[in-house]
């Protein structure tokens, strides 16, 4: 079936007309993209030049807002927004893409240049079957119809490693998992037999354990087909695994372009800082080992969780029946000490967030008991909910959704004090908020501003300040850094550490990123399918894992981030 792949009329024409010299496949010269809206003008890309050769993997690395995705979209001429100004030359095999008529460009898109987007959930049409959507691409770019088209589609699904491709043709996107959907997206991008595949953050929206598989697939297909791969990412781990050449983008310009030697020592200070900020697995050796385990018997547990089970019911209603579902959290028990940091890790869907929400009372527990400083959190005989809640606080994942856009920062920060300490003096309240704002590294002028005026990292700082305002004993952090850029991530982690030293609270740190765990945690608890499969001090778990699930998480970590002492 693979034979069919070679028979492409377009591909043949290309190879005949192609000069034999090593001229680059894609050549971008002085690309400039500006967005104009009224009188204001934003430069997204400010004069970028690079080449991509046949058969190589070119990685464009940068933080959010650096203009990397905009560059790719402008090469594809997909930036149709009003007021977009494009300048520069983009040559694909000697053809100037910017001067092509739109009709000719359409055959280039998907035909000569394929693209894989970040989110497989939204890039497939939910009402059409996989077979139909893939078949459409094959018909359009290879001219196949009927049975040959079907065989070709099956061949492609087989290529991208989808099990039972014949059956999957009939499936609809919602029946596939995220990883499978991304495989289908890759099959669709490749079915047009492109010379260049643009992959824009192809693994960011996927679960950690799937990321490695998708990257492996991309690499294999690129080598087999000899096409060029333009990888756009913020993650140096991915780049290290795949890229032949690396370009680092910062505020619309390329600060450095290098080969594999990049990882031996980047030249530009920005690339150096970026590479250094990336949390590595061996980070736990660079900080003092907390020896709290030895004195464990003497100390009273701050939080003890006993046999907690959480189950989400289908929505309860007067007239709807309930169907029992498997529990999201299944009999989890652990203890936490004052001032310690416990990391709760696991692949997505393992129940780590549900456990966190159950502790906070956001999700009801089916069974189990939670004692906070010796008192039960819920049920009879417990103290008032009001006080309990003050002792447990939460920092959320998405800094853009975690603050009410209609409230100013002062109100947001004071809200918890209003609710939990109603008798507090107004001047004392504002003093507390002021000092917290300084503690998280923001200026007092922030108080009168609205959340949308802050960047993602600043918002996360505000969220931390909001949680700390009511003096919690335990702060539950649900992936607080995963929505942030690498350099900002490092700052937030440092902030969390210094705040812990100052206020002495504990962290329950929910994450899938073992690098962050290593940088922050004293102990690690690994969850799988709602159960705790392994728990122990951070060095033990990360470097002498006992459970196969822990090992799988570790394997999913890109080679670069495993650090020197990787097992």
């Amino acid at each position, binding site marked *: 079936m693979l034979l069919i792949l070679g028979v492409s009329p377009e591909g043949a024409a290309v190879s005949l007309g192609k000069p034999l010299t090593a001229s680059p496949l894609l050549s971008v010269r002085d690309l400039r993209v500006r967005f104009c*809206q009224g009188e204001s003008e934003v430069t997204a890309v400010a004069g970028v030049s690079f080449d991509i050769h046949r058969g190589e993997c070119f990685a464009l690395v940068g933080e959010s807002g650096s203009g990397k995705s905009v560059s790719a979209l402008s090469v594809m001429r997909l930036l149709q*927004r009003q007021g977009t100004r494009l300048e520069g030359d983009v040559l694909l095999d000697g053809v100037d893409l910017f001067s092509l008529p739109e009709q000719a460009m359409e055959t280039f898109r998907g035909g000569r240049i394929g693209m894989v987007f970040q989110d497989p959930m939204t890039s497939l049409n939910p009402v059409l079957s996989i077979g139909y959507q893939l078949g459409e691409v094959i018909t359009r770019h290879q001219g196949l119809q009927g049975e040959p088209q079907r065989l070709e589609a099956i061949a492609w699904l087989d290529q991208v490693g989808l099990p039972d491709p014949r059956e999957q043709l009939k499936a609809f996107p919602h029946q596939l998992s995220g990883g499978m959907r991304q495989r289908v997206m890759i099959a669709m991008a490749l079915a047009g037999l492109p010379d260049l595949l643009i992959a824009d953050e192809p693994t960011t929206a996927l679960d950690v354990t799937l990321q490695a598989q998708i990257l492996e697939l991309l690499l294999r297909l690129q080598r087999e087909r000899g096409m060029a791969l333009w990888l756009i990412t913020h993650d140096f781990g991915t780049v290290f695994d795949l890229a032949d050449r690396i370009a680092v983008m910062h505020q619309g310009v390329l600060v450095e372009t290098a080969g594999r030697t990049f990882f031996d020592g980047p030249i530009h200070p920005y690339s150096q800082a970026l590479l250094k900020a990336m949390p590595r697995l061996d980070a736990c050796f660079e900080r003092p080992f907390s020896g709290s385990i030895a004195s464990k018997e003497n100390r009273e547990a701050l939080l003890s969780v006993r046999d907690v089970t959480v189950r989400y019911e289908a*929505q*309860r*209603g*007067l*007239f709807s029946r309930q169907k029992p579902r498997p529990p999201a959290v299944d009999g989890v028990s652990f203890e936490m000490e004052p001032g310690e940091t416990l990391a709760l890790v696991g692949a997505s869907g393992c129940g780590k967030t549900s456990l966190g*929400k159950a502790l*906070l*009372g*956001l999700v009801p527990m089916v069974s189990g008991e939670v004692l906070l400083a010796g008192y039960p959190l819920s049920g009879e005989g417990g103290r008032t*909910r*009001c006080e309990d*809640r*003050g002792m*447990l*606080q*939460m920092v*959320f*994942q*998405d800094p853009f*959704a*975690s*603050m*009410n*856009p*209609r*409230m*100013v920062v002062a109100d947001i920060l004071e*809200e*918890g004090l*209003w*609710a*939990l300490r109603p008798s507090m003096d107004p001047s004392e309240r504002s003093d507390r908020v002021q000092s917290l704002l300084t503690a998280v590294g923001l200026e007092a002028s922030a108080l009168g501003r*609205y959340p949308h005026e802050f960047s993602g990292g600043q918002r996360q700082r505000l*969220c931390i300040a*909001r*949680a700390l305002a*009511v003096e919690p004993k335990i702060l539950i952090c649900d992936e607080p850094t995963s929505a942030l850029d690498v350099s900002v991530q490092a700052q937030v982690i440092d902030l969390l550490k210094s705040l812990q030293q100052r206020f002495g609270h504990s962290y329950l740190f929910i994450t899938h990123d073992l690098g962050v765990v290593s940088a922050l945690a004293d102990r690690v608890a690994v969850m799988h399918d709602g159960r705790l499969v392994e728990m122990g001090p951070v060095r033990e778990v990360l470097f002498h894992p006992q459970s196969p699930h822990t090992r799988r998480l570790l394997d999913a970590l890109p080679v670069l981030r495993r650090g020197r002492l990787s097992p």
Partner: protein
Amino acid sequence: MPQLLPTDVFFFLTLFGLFGLLVYSLGQTHLRRPWQKVFQSTQAMVSLVILIPYLLVAVADSIRLEGVLVPQAGEGPVASSEPLSLLDLGLQRLRLSVEKTYSAPLQVELHAREMVRLPDGREIWSTPRLRYGGSHLIDPFKERTSDLFRRAIKGFFKGALVWLMLTVPLLAMVVWWTGDKRRVLLDIALGRSRFPWRAVLLAGLFLAMVVGVLAEWAAVYHVLGTDKVGADVLYQSLKSIRTGILIGTLTTVATLPLSLLLGILAGYFRGWVDDVIQYVYTTLNAIPGVLLIAAAMLVMQASMARHEAAFQSLALRADVRLLALCLILGLTSWTGLCRLLRAETLKLRNLEYVQAAKVLGVSQPRILLRHILPNVFHLVLIAVALDFSSLVLAEAVLSYVNIGVDPSTESWGNMINTARLEMAREPVVWWSLASAFCFMLGLVLPANLLADVLRDAFDPRRVS
């Protein structure tokens, strides 16, 4: 002596409420930007230029005085038996110049032929002269066209003069406020100013001239003809404005508490609260609206008949019926907005800032008031603006099937209802229908255009 009918009270309360809301929202930073967008939109501002006179007419028609002296034909002024609004007093001539029956717009004779007794005793089959319309003309067949033309020109210039008297101080204020005289005026002339001054002023000029001409004609003619009992149709149309606007605003106000409360509660608490509310509004939606309104109006009429003593004057009775209609319309049309609000609240309650508030121990009512309500408010604003025009139209439909406002209340629906029988006459009587249509269009079209701009400005999903 001023007198207030129940609808007047509610109308003024609504107006004050809306004004307060506007002032409040202009003070909120997150709402100020959308408002700026609205104020900079030519479409919205020109619509307002047309809507504001409508509103002024409605307000003038809601301020009533009792025992006003009214000139009586043949005798001295007599205190009127029923309260008269400022609009009635302003349009005294139109109100009192009642003809015998139908006459076409701007005509000087009745519409249909009838037996006329000549001074010499003979009877002929002819169209007699009107009592008021064009009665100043001696030979109407020769003079009418030139008289109309002369008056039109006069009205044209009068309108322009009034416009100038308003515009010059306004512009002077703008110039004084901004400083640079030349540039500001040039910007306005070229349409470059941020606030669409040029479009607004031109729309104002157009409006002033049209009103000028109409007023000049209305002084001696029936501009839009007369109806079956000889009443002036222009006067009826103007009186109908209050009814239309009242139904549009009061009904929306009546829907708001229900849809806001139930929508937010259903979306926030889910569970059985959601079930109950959903079943209520799906059931309500399954009953034909007209049926429900008809039933409610009949019940209301029956109970009014039982308590006759409480409704002494005709005006009061008609007014209570109008108020009841607004309430009933409101009670049957809250479901659409309720659904929207429920869906939005469902989305909001899962957002992290609501969860964070729960974790912080913020009480439920406070979460609803501070976190949910302000974030669904744009939906309310959009829905209110869109519903307004559909309700004005609904009144016309309901009056057409005789379950609308009281027959003695002037309304576009009643005008259409009485005109529909005359459509079959030969020669056709078209003006009642046409006037109601034009006046309704003049209110609903700008209201819709304004609603479009409001939706674009306040809908966060449309923000680029």
